[in-house]
């Protein structure tokens, strides 16, 4: 954070100096490039943070510009424009948000199809702008747009654009460093995972897209009075593609990357296009090379420096005590799974499964491969919906709820393969889990959340010192450490029911022991109910208060360790005699 402020300050100084130093020509050049840079920042937020690619930002840029242009043409000179103009940025934002909600709903993947949708939409936008003569002025565009009051003359235009760019950078820097940004990056890495921490990926992605729409519309708002002309090309596909190219070349992941790309290529192009005949070839080659070898763009080459700065910024500031989870984190309520059926095609995954978890204690779920153990977890957490039967937690029927809602009720899970966010720091990983059950969506905008601390976290840090190296990238952790980190993540969420899928898979005996102790500890201090899928019977004997044995999608037997070991049917299914 600190270095972003310093950075911004330096930026402002530089920006203010330019007109005096470089003269009118550059002042004008940069005014336009700055607006493009603002749009690029938005693309960076969607693509570099949220992990989905908008290929049609021209649509929002154009919308903003036409709205602003029409407002200025019709109401110039009256103060009402100050009321109307904001709409030129807000309407695109709302539109983008709506599109985002519609497209992302019920989809935990944001593959290239979203990109193609935005592409098609911007083609539509261009045709509308080009043919709706009465409103848009058609091909020749909306002409003779008056200046904004106080925005006449190149210098003024420049300062408006520069101010806007700095503001946009500030906004982006703030969002990217706010909890929201952390969650965006987590989402980009493993969309499926964060759902189970209680996040609605639809809203997260729609919000990112809305921000991008806002920035594009905002740039359009200023474009109209700056150029005094708005033409359909502005909402076309080519400009949209160029904006993506600039973002990629500059570096989509960082705050300054996209604007750097936009300004750099923008300036170089106006300078060289008319002198170097093969200019377009050079640009496309550079672009291809960047895509191939510099996924983080030109700015990415400064990564080492940035990391050092980030490390400085990463020393833990004064912690803030986090509120308790939304669900109150009370002692574990009962979970009842009653006669659940789940089949895909004519494969019966769950076949009338019924489980009852009354008293808070440690349950083990065992059974041969394909018995439906993991599917049971997926059904309880709402990832799979059972076709019949009923699942109740704390009296609430989970059947209809989406996974994130179920997670917020206090059901946490840990996956078999550790799925920590490898490109996030240890601390961010923990925080993503911490916020999930505690923060309301808007809270994610408060930087203070990044200083959250809870007693549970403190104790976990004592148990596992490696959780203290906040800045360490989770990707650099060993397999065992990742397992423990993910366990810690599911614990700091302070769930009331914790589902662990083979918590010790692939761990050394020593590490396994540590995990077992932690489970016991959590069980006592948090008073939660734990369900463990486990194959290692030694481990089961050690932790299980109660064992469920599953076979072919239904409950075969249950009881304490001794009774299960005595049960011949259980032995038979393990040895392979079908009963």
């Amino acid at each position: 954070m600190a270095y972003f402020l310093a950075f911004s300050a330096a930026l402002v100084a530089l920006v203010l100096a330019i007109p005096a130093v470089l003269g009118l020509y550059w002042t004008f050049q940069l005014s336009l490039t700055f607006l493009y840079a603002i749009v690029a920042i938005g693309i960076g937020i969607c693509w570099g943070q949220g992990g989905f690619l908008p290929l049609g930002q021209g649509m929002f840029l154009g919308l903003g510009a036409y709205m602003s242009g029409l407002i200025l043409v019709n109401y110039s000179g009256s103060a009402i424009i100050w009321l109307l103009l904001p709409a030129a940025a807000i309407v695109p934002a709302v539109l983008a948000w709506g599109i985002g909600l519609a497209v992302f709903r019920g989809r935990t993947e944001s593959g290239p199809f979203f990109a193609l949708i935005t592409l098609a939409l911007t083609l539509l936008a261009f045709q509308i702008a080009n043919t709706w003569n009465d409103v848009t002025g058609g091909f020749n565009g909306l002409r003779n747009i008056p200046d904004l009051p106080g925005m006449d003359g190149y210098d003024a235009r420049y300062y408006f654009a520069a101010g806007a760019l700095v503001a946009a950078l500030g906004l982006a820097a703030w969002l990217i460093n706010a909890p929201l940004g952390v969650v965006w990056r987590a989402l980009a890495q493993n969309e499926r995972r964060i759902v189970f921490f209680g996040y609605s990926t639809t809203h997260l992605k729609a919000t990112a897209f809305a921000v991008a729409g806002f920035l594009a519309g905002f740039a359009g708002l200023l474009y109209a009075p700056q150029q005094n002309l708005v033409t359909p090309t502005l909402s076309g596909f080519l400009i949209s593609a160029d904006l993506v190219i600039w973002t990629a070349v500059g570096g989509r992941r960082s705050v300054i990357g996209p604007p750097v790309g936009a300004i750099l290529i923008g300036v170089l192009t106006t300078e060289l296009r008319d002198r170097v005949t093969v200019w377009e070839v050079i640009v496309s080659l550079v672009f291809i090379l960047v895509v191939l070898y510099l996924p983080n763009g030109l700015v990415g080459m400064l990564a080492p420096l940035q990391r050092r700065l980030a490390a400085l910024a990463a020393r833990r500031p004064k912690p803030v005590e986090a509120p308790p989870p939304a669900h109150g984190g009370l002692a574990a309520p009962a979970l009842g799974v009653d006669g659940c059926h789940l089949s895909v095609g004519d494969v019966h995954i769950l076949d009338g499964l019924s489980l009852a978890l009354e008293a808070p204690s440690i349950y083990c779920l065992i059974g041969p491969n394909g018995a439906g153990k993991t599917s049971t977890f997926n059904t309880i957490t709402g990832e799979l919906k059972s076709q019949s039967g009923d699942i109740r937690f704390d009296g609430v029927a989970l059947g209809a709820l989406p996974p994130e809602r179920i997670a917020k009720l206090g059901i946490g899970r840990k996956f078999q393969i550790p799925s920590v966010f490898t490109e996030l720091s240890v601390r961010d990983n923990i925080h993503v889990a911490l916020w999930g059950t505690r923060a309301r969506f808007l809270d994610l905008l408060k930087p203070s959340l990044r200083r959250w601390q809870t007693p549970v976290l403190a104790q976990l840090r004592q148990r596992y010192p490696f959780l203290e190296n906040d800045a360490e990238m989770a990707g650099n952790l060993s397999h065992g450490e990742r397992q423990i980190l993910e366990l810690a993540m599911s614990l700091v969420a302070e769930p009331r029911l914790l589902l662990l899928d083979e918590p010790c898979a692939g761990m050394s005996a020593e590490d396994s022991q540590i995990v077992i102790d932690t489970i016991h500890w959590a069980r006592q201090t948090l008073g939660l109910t734990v369900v463990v899928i486990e194959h290692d019977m030694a481990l089961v004997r050690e932790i299980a208060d109660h064992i469920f044995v599953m076979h072919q999608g239904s409950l075969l037997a249950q009881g304490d360790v001794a009774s299960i070991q005595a049960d011949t049917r259980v032995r038979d299914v393990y040895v392979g005699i079908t009963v």
Partner: protein
Amino acid sequence: MSPLFQFDDIVGGYGEVEVVRGVSGQIEPGRVVGVTGRNGVGKSTLLKLLFGSLPLIGGAVRFRGRDLKGTSPAQRSRDGISFCPQERIVFDNLGVWENLSLMQSRAAVEDFAVFFEVFPRLRERLRQHAGTLSGGERKMLSFMRTMSEGKTLALLDEPTEGVQQENIDHMTDLVLQARHDQRSFVIVEQNIHFLENVADYLIVMDQGRIVLEGPAVTIKRADIIAHLGV
């Protein structure tokens, strides 16, 4: 004269995680080696290491006396090793017939008659997407695919998992027939009955190591169950 297939002190796993910690064995033509042990003790990993789907951390695999170091799974398959994995066992996005005839485009349905006799359901579903088959049917399909390749050596991972008893019996017959035709198998299984019926030699694994091995006749079931059961 070196054995058909030989693996010495195999070490490997996923990334830095060592799941298999030094396993050795060998197999002669017309022989069946059964590998068993509880879930998660490294049986499947062992097969993947033998077939080259996972990189070896240590040890060596030899086929017909030649070190397989650096040969891709595809190459090993062409050299005469079949692999029947435990997960993602069929091409869900292909039809049953496509699954069978994928690498034998000249094949006719009759060529599979011997299998369809015992697995008639698959014949009925020749044009159906493999993805829509039940777990057991998929198992049979992948088993059938592996057997029909007629390679010298086949590595089978849990072929009977989720398969009805009667079909398991058919599988037993088919394996015995193939063994009689001098084809060799390494079969990872938890179904001891199946292994007892087909295997000449048994290996029991735990914690990525061999804890018990020997000619099938010499190993008592109780000992196995001691390692296997709960």
